[in-house]
């Protein structure tokens, strides 16, 4: 109780005198603000990318690819597709047909609106368009493509990001004119996706195989049964992943890179700002030497002095932490970016605010340690004798 009373009295005294040391206090404040703003907004990239990849995933869907192959490398023959349709666990529509879509990718070239930069993304041929347009995905304008007619539909994101995706626009693919007949929304995703009929693409490209198969299961829990049946058939040589797992695997490397860069920069900035904070706190403590010595002389314990200084340091980091998070939110929340060909919005979540504040408080704790030690060790006689 004694300790606590002393501690609170000291803390109140310390904070009351902060106005006199505005320069030092502002140094800590600005250092912490800059660090937290940068850390939170950079982490918001990873969070935004991940949220987008996760957001439109249906838990009852699974992705089937050739064993050991991904994306363009994976080949699944029509025979394999026929066998797969009869596996257990697959949901069926009202006509009793299994909800399975064969997907074929073809590289497709787009030019960024304004800059004209060329970007490659896949033109996706699907054997069942209803599968791709499952709510919340929905057509917003125009109509669906008709099989065999070289027609395609594009997400609304394509229209904003690239040239030549307006309704009725013509695009050359393999020397054939294709027409954009509809626009659709994928849900939350900002990614440009262009959809068409699988058979039309396959005949144009002389292909006889799919790249992947999307499967809708009766329930997410049916995945185990489906996967067991798939693995039990050695002739198939296919492997399945729940759609969410596949989406996360697709994003893993990209997210790892973003997080590495964020924490790398965030750590270095924090170290620099902590050095600045230590300097400021030292000068604050030095300016208080006589007061501290007086207090020690009238019976305040050195433990209480140390604890109060340390806590003061932590408290001084709080305004910077809050402002840093708010700045990150104001400046970058929902901002659309497209690094490495991904398009998504930055997302400043409460969790990131937590990370920013914990980061700042740690800076205060570490930065306050040495100055607190000095404050606790003020020699009563020497300090009172000086000037």
């Amino acid at each position, binding site marked *: 109780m004694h300790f606590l009373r002393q501690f609170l009295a000291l803390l109140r005294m310390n904070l009351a005198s902060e106005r006199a040391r505005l*320069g*030092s206090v*502002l*140094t800590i404040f*600005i*250092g912490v*603000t*800059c*660090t937290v*703003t*940068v850390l939170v907004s950079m982490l918001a990239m990873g969070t935004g990318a991940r949220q987008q990849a996760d957001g439109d995933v249906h838990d009852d869907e699974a992705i089937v690819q*050739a*064993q*050991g*192959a991904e994306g*363009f*490398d*994976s*080949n699944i023959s029509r025979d394999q597709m026929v066998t797969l349709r009869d596996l257990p666990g697959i949901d069926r529509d009202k006509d009793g047909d299994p909800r399975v879509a064969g997907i074929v990718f*073809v*590289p*497709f*070239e787009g030019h960024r609106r304004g*800059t004209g*930069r*060329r*970007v*490659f993304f896949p033109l996706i041929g699907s054997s069942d368009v209803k599968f791709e347009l499952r709510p919340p995905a929905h057509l917003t304008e125009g109509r669906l493509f008709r099989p065999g007619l070289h027609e395609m539909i594009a997400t609304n994101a394509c229209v904003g990001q690239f040239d030549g995706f307006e309704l009725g626009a013509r695009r*050359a*693919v*393999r*020397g054939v004119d294709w027409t954009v007949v509809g626009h659709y929304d994928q849900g939350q995703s900002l990614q440009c996706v262009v959809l068409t009929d699988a058979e039309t693409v396959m005949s144009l*490209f002389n292909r006889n195989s799919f790249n992947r198969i999307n499967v809708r299961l009766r329930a997410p829990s049916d995945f185990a049964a489906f996967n067991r049946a798939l693995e039990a058939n050695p002739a198939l040589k296919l492997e399945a992943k729940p759609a969410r797992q596949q989406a996360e695997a697709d994003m893993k490397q990209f997210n790892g*890179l973003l997080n590495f*860069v964020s924490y*790398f*920069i965030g750590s*270095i*900035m924090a*170290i*620099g*700002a902590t*050095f*600045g904070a*230590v*300097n*400021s706190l*030292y*000068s604050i403590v030095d300016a208080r030497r006589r007061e501290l010595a007086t207090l020690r002389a009238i019976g305040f314990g050195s433990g209480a002095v140390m604890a109060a200084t340390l806590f003061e340091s932590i408290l001084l980091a709080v305004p910077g932490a809050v402002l840093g998070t708010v700045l990150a939110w104001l400046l970058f929340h929902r901002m659309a*970016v*497209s*690094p*490495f*060909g991904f398009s998504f919005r930055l997302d400043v979540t409460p969790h990131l605010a937590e990370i920013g504040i914990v980061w700042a408080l740690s800076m205060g704790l570490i930065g306050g340690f040495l100055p607190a030690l000095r404050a606790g060790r003020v020699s009563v006689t020497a300090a009172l004798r000086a000037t």
Partner: protein
Amino acid sequence: MKYLPLIWSGIWRKPGRTILIFLQVSVAFVLFGVLQGMKTGIEHAVQAARPDLLIVHSRQDFIFSGLPLGLLEHLRSVPGVKLVEPVELFGSYYQKPENGMLIIAVRPDRNWTDAFTFNIAPEQVAAFAKSRTAALVTEYAAQKYGWKIGDHIPLVSQVVSKEGSTTWAFDLVGTFTDSDFTPGRYKILVNYDYYDQARVSNTATVNHFNVAVADANQAVSVADAIDRLSLNSSHETKTESIRELAQQQVQQIGDLDFLVHAVVGAVLAALLFGTATMMMQSVRERTPELAVLKTIGFTDHAVFLLVLVEAVVVCIAAAACGLALSTAVFPFAARIVFGLAMPPVTVVVGLALAVALAVVSAALPALRAARLRVVSALADH
């Protein structure tokens, strides 16, 4: 020169504070060095990419389907073309699907390496040309898997051979490095003719042609002439130099400039405020000493310079230390972009920034010191 001891003692008047400022500035310049170095390094790498090396690929689909091998002779006849080499690409893996390996099938003609960015020892180029199953791998892959010259390397791919197998085996005759900064450390060079004759489907096609032009200044017109060859055919081509491709790749990274500028700006702003406050405090504490200096004949001008030079010395020393450190950690941070080196210009810019930082943060305190009135300064204490 005679002021040197004075400056030195000013710097070490409060060693703790100086060391902390030194560390703060150093750390900031580590970050500056890494970020700015990366940005400049990428720009340099793009500039260093060969403008005289053209890639002729299918206009429709760059990645996926290819061009007929027959185009080779037509390309050779285009004026200004020095060398044409066919290149076929296919994915494979070693032992486990995670161990991806890009197979690059090339023809070991005379001088074929001139049309590539690979660095290969001449005797290994010769060994590669001698055997149809010979292969060269990147040094990185050879180290990772412990492959030695003479090893027999089985790779699994999706391409089926005439024997009905999807496993392709090659004999290692050497290693190479790639000076192009495109990603991918796992590459293996094999013989195109051997591979093409052994595969079942897509025979006599290539992914792209590498074309070396005689005069780099003519590269654009040669590229246009090449693309005109196949206009309106079923295999229209698109021809770009590897410098153009490198530029496009950098653009894919996105708003790198914005990111680097924002972070460096935030770091320097925080730093500027910190050092300025500390300098101000230092001058305030030294008021009596500075007044004494003036009493014994130092001009206002000399006192101003004294304070300023002190800050400049500390900042330059700290920045030099930070930049040296960032050069040391650069290879680690640069793993994002393969084969990048710290550009010297970044170090120069960094040191100039350190001087600017010192001057801006010390100007006000130095001015205050210069304007000090001896009588009142001494009277205060």
